[in-house]
């Protein structure tokens, strides 16, 4: 039986759904529940990672230092993961995370901009940290391009590499091709990561396809907690993987308990595949833009679906939330002129 390592970014990617407002009690409670279930890695942070609390994407309720020390204290056997985007966080943030006892450190870059991670992966290699690199918005590149970039970041020092379907755009066959291409490019010693989003209802199916194609690390969040339609729903993913023939080492009842806790304490309601999530999946835009798109288009009286399609046309990537203001203003002016 093959093994898959489950990586749980509920306390990081889930932050997008609640405008980065998770408090200390929620962080501690979920980390304890995840630890009790034997989830191998629990990732924590602002939705955009270390150093990313900002007006551009939203200010976090809790500082990076407090988030990391809280979760570190709550974990007995699970590893602590963090996430960082070059240009947002810096080596100084990575150094602090290592000092806080982060075990798995993920550097995220747009899928075709991997040279932005060279410096930070090199720094983590010097620190002896378990550095991963994830290629974001991976629907914007071909399997061959993804394979080339994956091999490159392994050269920089990544010990695991993979893709995020940030816009929830993929269908299972897309994932099979991409994971297979990366698997072939990086060699057997480097685990391949898949991180799904559920905009088109495909997150669990895509994750199973990824495991089938040789991914060794799969991400999932409790109740799918995440932007828009959410991430891959963890407590569905784990038993489905087990039935498919992949061992996760996670205790089912304790996992279900952790998901109950998450639904009760982390979120006003579990994510649903609403109209805007479907549109953002089709348009190939990160669902994390949803709150700002709704706020600004509501005030300007423009259709938020048009805003998402226009952001897709402009090839907006995560972090470019400032484009929303421009797009809404432009659509609003067009409407006035019509």
């Amino acid at each position: 039986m093959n093994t898959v390592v489950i990586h749980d970014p509920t306390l990081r990617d889930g932050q997008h759904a609640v405008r980065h407002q998770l408090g200390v009690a929620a962080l501690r409670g979920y980390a304890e529940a995840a630890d009790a279930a034997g989830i191998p890695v629990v990732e924590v942070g602002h939705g955009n990672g270390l150093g990313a609390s900002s007006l551009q994407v939203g200010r976090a309720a809790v500082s990076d230092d407090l988030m990391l020390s809280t979760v570190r204290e709550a974990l007995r056997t699970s590893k602590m993961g963090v996430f960082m985007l070059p240009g947002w966080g810096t080596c100084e943030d990575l150094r602090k995370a290592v000092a806080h006892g982060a075990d798995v450190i993920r550097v995220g870059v747009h899928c075709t901009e991997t040279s932005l991670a060279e410096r930070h992966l090199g720094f983590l290699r010097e620190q002896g940290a378990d550095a991963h690199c994830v290629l974001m918005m991976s629907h914007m590149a071909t399997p061959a391009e993804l394979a080339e970039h994956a091999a490159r970041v392994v050269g920089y020092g990544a010990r695991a590499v993979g893709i995020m379907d940030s816009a929830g755009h993929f269908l299972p066959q897309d994932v099979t091709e991409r994971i297979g291409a990366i698997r072939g490019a990086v060699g057997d010693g480097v685990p391949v990561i898949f991180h799904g989003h559920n905009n088109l209802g495909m997150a669990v199916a895509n994750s199973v396809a990824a495991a089938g194609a040789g991914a060794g690390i799969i991400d999932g969040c409790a109740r799918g907690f995440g932007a828009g339609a959410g991430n891959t729903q963890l407590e569905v993913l784990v038993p489905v993987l087990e039935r498919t023939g992949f061992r996760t080492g996670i205790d089912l009842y304790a996992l279900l308990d952790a998901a109950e806790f998450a639904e009760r304490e982390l979120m006003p309601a579990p994510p649903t595949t609403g109209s805007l999530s479907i549109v953002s999946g089709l348009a190939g835009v990160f669902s994390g833009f949803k709150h700002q798109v709704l706020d600004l288009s509501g005030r300007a009286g423009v259709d938020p679906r048009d805003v998402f399609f226009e952001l897709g046309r402009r090839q907006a990537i995560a972090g470019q939330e400032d484009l929303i203001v421009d797009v809404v203003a432009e659509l609003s002016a067009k409407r006035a002129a019509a």
Partner: protein
Amino acid sequence: MTIAEDVTAAAPATVPPVSVAVIGTGAIGQDLVSKIHRSAVLECALVAGRNPHSGGLEHAARLGYPTSTDGIDAVLAAPRPFDVVFDATNAQSHAEHWRLLRPLDTLLIDLTPSKVGQMVVPTITGTHTPTERNVSLISCGGQASTPIAHALAAAFQVEYIEVVSTVASSIAGRATRLNLDEYVATTGHALTTFTGVADTKAILNISPAVPPATFRTALHAVIPGATAEAVRAVVAEAAERVRAFAPGYEVIACGVDGDRVVVSLEVIADSDVLPRYAGNLDIINSAAILVAEQHAARLAPAAGTGAAR
């Protein structure tokens, strides 16, 4: 304030040319050479890189300028020091370049985000009288955002400032990519220095969009009690002053929502070698040329009387 006059005052065309060298042959170095080529008072005496196949060296040679692949060593080997050396390499190399050039009578103008030299933003500090011989142009995002941030801080009680710049991937070279941390630290430091606001933040995005996106900077600020009308007036006035030397500098949007202010800026390049979207390089290089030309004007009387310098 007399700074506007300082910015718009062109260097006198009658000044005898001063000799300048450019180290670094990426897009920023190449645009510098083309701007020096346009200048009446700057004489390009050396373009030095490391890579013999770089387009920047070919471009300089085509314009008839001496080139070398020996980098800083070629600068040091010159029979007499250059009046001005532009450093378009990277933040790590700059510290070493400054150590080597410091003993010489040369003005070093730094285009890297090294944070080493005296920070210059034309519309804030002026360009006439740097007191040190190492001038830092901060960063592209710094040049785009600090004029607005400084004007807002002068007019209002600003609690927080954040700037998010987006550069097209095709114009972000290796040095830019390796210097993201320095970019973040140096741009944030400049924001604090020129506004007095302790709590600042800088972020850089690299956009992969095709066709490439025009360089943009979004400035977010927390300003209790600011009205949209008052903010727009301050921003428009500050932007007009920047346009005196960077004509492609535009305010795209300016909004106030409660105590939150958002200003979106774009810079279109006005250059013989850069694509129009590369306003990030155009604005920092235009500022650098301004500093060099003012330095030329300052050297002129000494040259006229034959005094040693």
